[in-house]
Each structure stands twice: as C-alpha cells, then as structure tokens.
C-alpha cells in the first residue's frame, strides 16, 4: 500500500512538474522571435482569407435605435493631455484643420466645417473592443472615399495612415497612430465621424473626428485625428507595424477577428 501511495505521489509530482515546465515553456516561446513569427501566420491567414472572401463589399451589420447602448463607453484616452489639443478643444475646434497628404495628386487641408459640408452618412453600428466588450452607437460623418476623391491617391498609395492628438506615454510623448489599407479606405461604411448619437462627437469619444472602420476591432478606430497621410509602405512609420498598439504591444495590424 505504502509503495502504491509513493508511486501515486511520484506520478502526481511528475505531472505537476511537466505541467509547470510546459507553462514556463509557453511563456519562453511567447518571448522568442521565431515562434511569434510562426504564430503570426494565423493572423495573416485570417486576413488573406477575409480579403479573398470579400475585400470591399460586405457591409457591417447596422442596428435600430432600440439597440443603441445607453451611453457609449470611452476607452483608451478620454482627454488628450497635450496643451495643443486642449487649446483646440477650448475653442470648439474652430482652429483645428485636417491635412490629407502623402502619395496624393492634390494634398488638401480641411476645416471641420468643410468636412461637415461633404456628403454625409449615418450608421448605427457595433463597436467591438479587442478586450471582448461591445457597444452600439449611431455615427454620422464624411465617408472616407469622399475625402479620397478630393485628394486623388496615386496608384502607389496602398495605406492610409491616421496621426492622432493623444499622447500614449505619461510624459506626453508617442502620439497614437493607426492605418488601414485601400480596401477598407474605400469601403462604404468607413468614415470620418463627427457625430455620435445625434450629438457633436464628445471629447471622450475622439472629438473633433474619429475614424470608423466597421469591419475591424476598436483599436483601429483612431480618435482625435490630426493628419491623414497616404503611403506606399508602413515599414518607415514608427515601429513599422502600422499602429501604436501593433508596434508597442504586438497586436495584429489586421483586426477583423
């Protein structure tokens, strides 16, 4: 009997030991370059599969007013800490202007009033955060393709980069940035939103304008947009992965899942 309990104890320890080793191993793998490269093929497969099925056409679900969340949650930055942004906000963004340049025939700078004068679109859509929660809100804004029609992208332009006002570090450095490809840029629901739930877009949700790119997760929906640039490649921008969270924490650039 004693022999048997000894053996059982040994087996239990062996199992616990193997389990601990496996867990430590997984954490080691998570920090190794080669293995994370292997893992990231999962994300690329998803992106390629999604683009193959439907690049520009499929429309994100739109909801009725009854589905709208009572208050639209603010996530990430709720008030950019820079003096520059706060000065613009104090003046209701009358001094704010958006430059769209880069690989375009006709770079332009638009005021908020000019953006609001463009043809507009209203949509009640769901915002799905990468963390797992969702909120439904009603957005109004200028479809990005209207703005692209004004600047006329060059044929080498493959990505649209959004430079934002919100500093991500405590010392006020490293402002938020995000990017999308031309499939999403020309998608009918992709817009520069200036209204949320029939009211002027609140500061906590990204005033004066934020991006809506409805077939992707929340971190792609750049808030506090200050400049838009069309580029051929993402490599030269910051860490090279196309967005703040992509560069700083390893989130996938394609956030369709």
């Amino acid at each position: 009997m004693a022999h048997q309990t000894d053996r059982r104890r040994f087996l239990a320890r062996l199992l616990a030991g193997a389990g601990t080793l496996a867990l430590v191993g997984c954490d080691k793998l998570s920090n190794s370059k080669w293995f994370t490269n292997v893992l990231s093929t999962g994300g690329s497969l998803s992106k390629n599969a999604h683009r193959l099925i439907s690049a520009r056409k499929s429309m994100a679900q739109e909801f009725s007013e009854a589905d709208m969340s009572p208050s639209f949650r603010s996530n990430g930055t709720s008030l950019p800490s820079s003096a520059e942004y706060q000065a613009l906000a104090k003046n209701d963004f009358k001094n704010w202007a958006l430059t769209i340049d880069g690989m375009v025939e006709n770079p332009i700078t638009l005021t908020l009033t000019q953006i609001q004068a463009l043809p507009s679109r209203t949509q009640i859509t769901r915002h799905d955060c990468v963390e797992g929660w969702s909120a439904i809100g009603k957005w109004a804004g200028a479809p990005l393709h209207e703005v692209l029609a004004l600047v006329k992208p060059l044929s080498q332009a493959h990505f649209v980069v959004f430079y934002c006002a919100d500093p991500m570090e405590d010392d006020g450095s490293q402002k938020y940035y995000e990017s999308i490809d031309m499939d999403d840029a020309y998608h009918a629901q992709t817009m520069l939103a200036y209204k949320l739930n029939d009211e002027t877009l609140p500061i906590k949700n990204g005033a004066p304008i934020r991006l809506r790119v409805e077939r992707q997760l929340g971190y792609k929906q750049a808030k506090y947009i200050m400049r838009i640039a069309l580029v051929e490649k993402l490599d030269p921008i910051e860490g090279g992965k196309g967005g703040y969270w992509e560069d700083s924490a390893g989130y996938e650039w394609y956030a369709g899942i």
Partner: protein
Amino acid sequence: MSTVNKSSLEPYFIYRHKLPIRIMHWINVLCFTVLLMSGLNIFNSHAALNLGKSSYNGYAPILEMKSIQNSNGELVGITNIFGYQFDTTGVLGASMGPEGKLIKRGFPSWITIPGPKWLAMARQWHFFFAWLFVINGICYVTYSLFSKHLQRDLLTTKSDRASIWQSIKDHARFKHPSGEAAIPYNVLQKIAYLSVIFILLPLVILMGFAMSPFLDSLIPGWVDLFGGRQTARTIHFIVAWLLVTFVFIHVFEVIITGVWNNLRSMITGQYQIKTHIDTSHKEGE
C-alpha cells in the same frame, strides 16, 4: 471448458487505431489545450459574460469575476454568477501574481497561456492553433467518411440503441465490457464522440466566427440568430467548458478501462485483448 485450447486464452493484440487517427487525435489534444488556456487569457481582459447584441444594454452580466479590497486592505476575489456572489480568492477574480502577491485577474496564471496578462500574445496563440484545429478537424471528418471509420465505428447500430439504458446503468456502476466485447465502442461512448464532433466543436468554432467583426459582415444579421455578439461570446465560453467536461469524463474512462492499454492503442495502435477465463486462471495459479 477444459477442452478449450490454452493458446486461444492467451492475451493477444489487435490493431485498433489507424495511424492518421492517432496523429489527428494528438494534434487535437495539443490544439484544444492551447485554445482553452489562451482563450482564458483572452477572457481575462474582460472577465464578464453578457447576453445580447452589446455589453451595454441595461442587463447585468450573467457571470463576472472581479476583485475588491476588504477592510484590511487585502484583495478579495469575487465571482458573481446569476447574481449570486462567491468569494473565490486565490483562484478566480484575484490570484497570485509573479511577485507572490495577490493580483486582480479572472482565471489564475497556471491555467492561461501565456501566464501573465498579455492579450495580444494570447490572441496570437489562439488564432494560430484555431487554424490548426479547424484544418485537423476537417481532415478528421473527411478521413472518417472515406475510410468508413465514421460509419463502421461511430454511428450507432440498432442493437446499440436498444441497449442505451443498460449502458447507462453499466457506466454508473463503472462496469465496462472486457475481452472482445471491449473492441467496438459502446453506445454512450459513440453518442459522446458524435456529439463532440458534430455538435459541440462546430458550435464552438461558429461562435468564434460570430465574434469576428469581419465575418459578422458577410451575412448581416446572422450573429443575431444566436442572440447577438455577446451571447455568442457567452456560448463560446460555455461550450469550451462542456468540452472540458467531456475531456475529464474521457480521461476518467481511459484510466478505469486500462490506462496503459488505452494509451498504447492511441500511440502504437496496438490494443491488448484479454479474456476473462485467462486472467482468472492466472490469478488462480
């Protein structure tokens, strides 16, 4: 009985599981383990389950894990299920962090991949192994159909269906067929495997799809058939735990019906058949 040829009573081996089945079985074990543990790390980023199209629709979550500070300033892990509150300190809501102190987290680090809170990396693990899991599953079903494994070994027969009640009673008493009677799967075993292969696994995959804002857009409104995106997330979580329950019962049955023989048959394919008379003779001698 004394006239029975002694050699026919000797234990002998049959080739039980073919190589493709064995390979796919162990790939499945690896994938399911990683998917569960990375899934729990992902869950920890928002340790609550809601029902409906969004999380903010006026209804309280049906499950929530959180931590609060008690009057002594200590961290207390709280799990809330259907409005009932439980102190789950050490396991759910609050558990040991890397510095040996209680920290706020849904599931503890020993059951998540990676161990620390790391949503981006957990997603990388989850989606890579999800692809492998789905490809493996498609290969398994295709192979099972064409090799007739499905028709021959998994589909229930008329006599199976007639013996369901007997099989339930046998399982409840941990009584299992032995000798040659143990070669075919029993009826409850077949039903369990078929439910996992054709109901639970497709459902957990579909509910994973339902959480993708892109796949959601392919047929607008399809996610609402399952109650909405947050309900889909909740179903994904529940089905994952139903699969864990299956694994526990499966491993339990493997152990009580001859752990080494079963393991060998899933590694080398060889399954040993012993007759009753044979073993009783040996013990008598």
